[in-house]
């Protein structure tokens, strides 16, 4: 019987030889991601119910990120609860401040993601890890509590939609533009409850960093998970990086696996895209929106705060000055160090940007770059909902690091290709 990669991983996790979309299974969890917003509540719930047990202290990865370093007293209390618990339970992989980073950049970087595994996290963008041929999905605090205690969780096996990415990306067009184009095409509920499986030659020219930008935003189309098959690029990223158990299982979709739908995208025809407020599906080619005045440019987050993103932004800003507030947020301490060593900070500094510590920060309207009423921000993040980065009367325009950098220089939405 033929299966997709998602079905194969879920079947194996439930000890079954075959599953079909719609089946309810009990999956064994291989890795749990815990951060400062949703985990403290899970911990309290477990305490309250008297089921204060951790299923495996080596399979839980903890990093504060949303409000770290603590932005106020209340978030400091959240961090304290997380810290006390992580120490008390002897969580092996606990990234304290200094080592902490934006979870979805940190876990792959630190080698916690293995192909073929089932990974969950108390964060909707946990779907990022699907770039490594793993099944990964976001859950709320109660599911998190249940998984922390039992190491299992029920899932309904999702039907899969196949996205075939064809064609070479032209200069100035990146994986961010690809995923914004996909979401613009199918809508924010276009893949509701489904697996989004990405295949095709365009992926072969993308680094793991670029691929993670694509799977990161699967949730913005309503998907349960996003997934990309294993290849040499995946292997190269993982070699020497994987922590703990070195072996992993590589699953591939069968040639005759069933898909609910196949969507083909000719990536060679794509232009830089900006998702206009207030849904990630608001993508328009830069030609349709260039010139719109901005107040801030934000380059960071689990979508586009990796070293490659910072290099792209720096290449555009080199020798230029920014016209608006521009905030650079390296997603992890390692990326921060690397950017500094490569001289990117010098470029950002000279251009007039501010560089932040690794944090989710303003992406979700936390801190480090909140918008006032009436302000507009071009941002490399993943959501442009009403009030997402501050005042409900502010606006967020989602774009690639290149577009955000070019727009920072001009103070308005700008075509990054002019600077290449």
């Amino acid at each position: 019987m033929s299966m997709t990669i998602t079905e194969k991983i879920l079947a194996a996790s439930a000890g079954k030889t075959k599953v079909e979309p719609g089946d309810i299974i009990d999956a064994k969890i291989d890795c749990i991601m815990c951060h400062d917003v949703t985990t403290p509540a899970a911990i309290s719930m477990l305490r309250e119910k008297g089921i204060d047990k951790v299923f495996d202290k080596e399979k839980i990865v903890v990093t504060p990120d949303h409000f770290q370093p603590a932005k106020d007293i209340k978030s400091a209390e959240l961090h304290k609860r997380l810290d006390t618990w992580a120490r008390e339970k002897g969580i092996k992989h606990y990234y304290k401040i200094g080592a902490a980073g934006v979870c979805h950049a940190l876990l792959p970087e630190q080698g916690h993601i293995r192909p073929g595994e089932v990974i969950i996290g108390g964060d909707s963008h946990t779907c990022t890890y699907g770039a490594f041929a793993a099944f990964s999905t976001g859950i709320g605090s109660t599911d998190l509590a249940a998984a922390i205690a039992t190491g299992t969780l029920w899932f309904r096996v999702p039907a899969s939609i196949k996205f075939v990415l064809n064609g070479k990306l032209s200069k100035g067009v990146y994986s961010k533009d690809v995923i914004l184009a996909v979401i613009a095409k199918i809508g924010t509920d276009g893949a509701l409850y489904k697996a989004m499986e990405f295949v095709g030659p365009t992926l072969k020219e993308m680094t793991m960093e670029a691929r993670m930008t694509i799977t990161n935003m699967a949730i913005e189309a309503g998907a349960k998970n996003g997934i990309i098959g294993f290849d040499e690029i995946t292997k190269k990223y993982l070699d020497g990086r994987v922590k703990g158990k070195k072996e992993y299982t590589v699953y591939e979709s069968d040639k005759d696996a069933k898909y609910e739908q196949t969507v083909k995208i000719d990536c060679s025809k794509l232009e830089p895209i900006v998702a206009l407020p207030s849904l990630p599906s608001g993508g328009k080619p830069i030609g349709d929106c260039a010139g719109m005045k901005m107040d801030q440019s934000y380059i960071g987050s689990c979508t586009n705060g990796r070293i490659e993103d910072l290099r792209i932004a720096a290449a555009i800003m080199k020798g230029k000055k920014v016209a608006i507030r521009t905030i650079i947020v390296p997603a992890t301490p390692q990326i921060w160090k690397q950017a500094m060593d490569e001289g990117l900070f010098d470029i950002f500094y000279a251009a007039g940007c501010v560089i932040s510590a690794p944090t989710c920060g303003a992406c979700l309207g936390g801190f480090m770059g909140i918008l006032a009423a009436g302000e507009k921000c071009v941002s490399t993040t993943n959501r442009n909902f009403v009030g997402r980065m501050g005042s409900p009367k502010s606006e967020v325009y989602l774009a690639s690091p290149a577009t955000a950098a070019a727009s920072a220089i001009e103070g308005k939405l700008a075509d990054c290709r002019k600077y290449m």
Partner: protein
Amino acid sequence: MAKAHTYKRDHINTDEIIPARYLNTDNMAELATHCMEDLDTEFVKKCKTGDCIVAGDDFGCGSSREHAVWALQGAKVGAVIAKSFARIFYRNCINCGFYPIELDGATEKINTGDEIEIDYKKGVINNKTQKKEIKFKPLPDFAIEIVNDGGLLEHIKKSR
């Protein structure tokens, strides 16, 4: 008697239900004071115990924050009736012992101010104002069990 608050909108997201600026707490009573704030600043004042929110497609899309459900529960919302729900929000509702009701054409069938009564097990909404009985597909039995036990953790505790 429970009243309906109808929002003829699709994609009402978790940032509207509970803005992230309030996520520095997980205290239900505190979250409740900001429930639906970025969509309707008057909501908390208008909502009486047991009232229901009625909306279009993809209710609860966005973040995995269970705080969205807690804010609704804290504001004493009885249930959300929507054309469809985002996946994580739907699951969070059940896990918290809160009813998500999927109803085709919800915003056409129930208006703001309508008095309604819901039979969750049978899958019937009695719209007393319009004197109409509206059928919906009830939650699967295992989900109703979780909701009735008061959420997933109570359910796990009971079934051990």
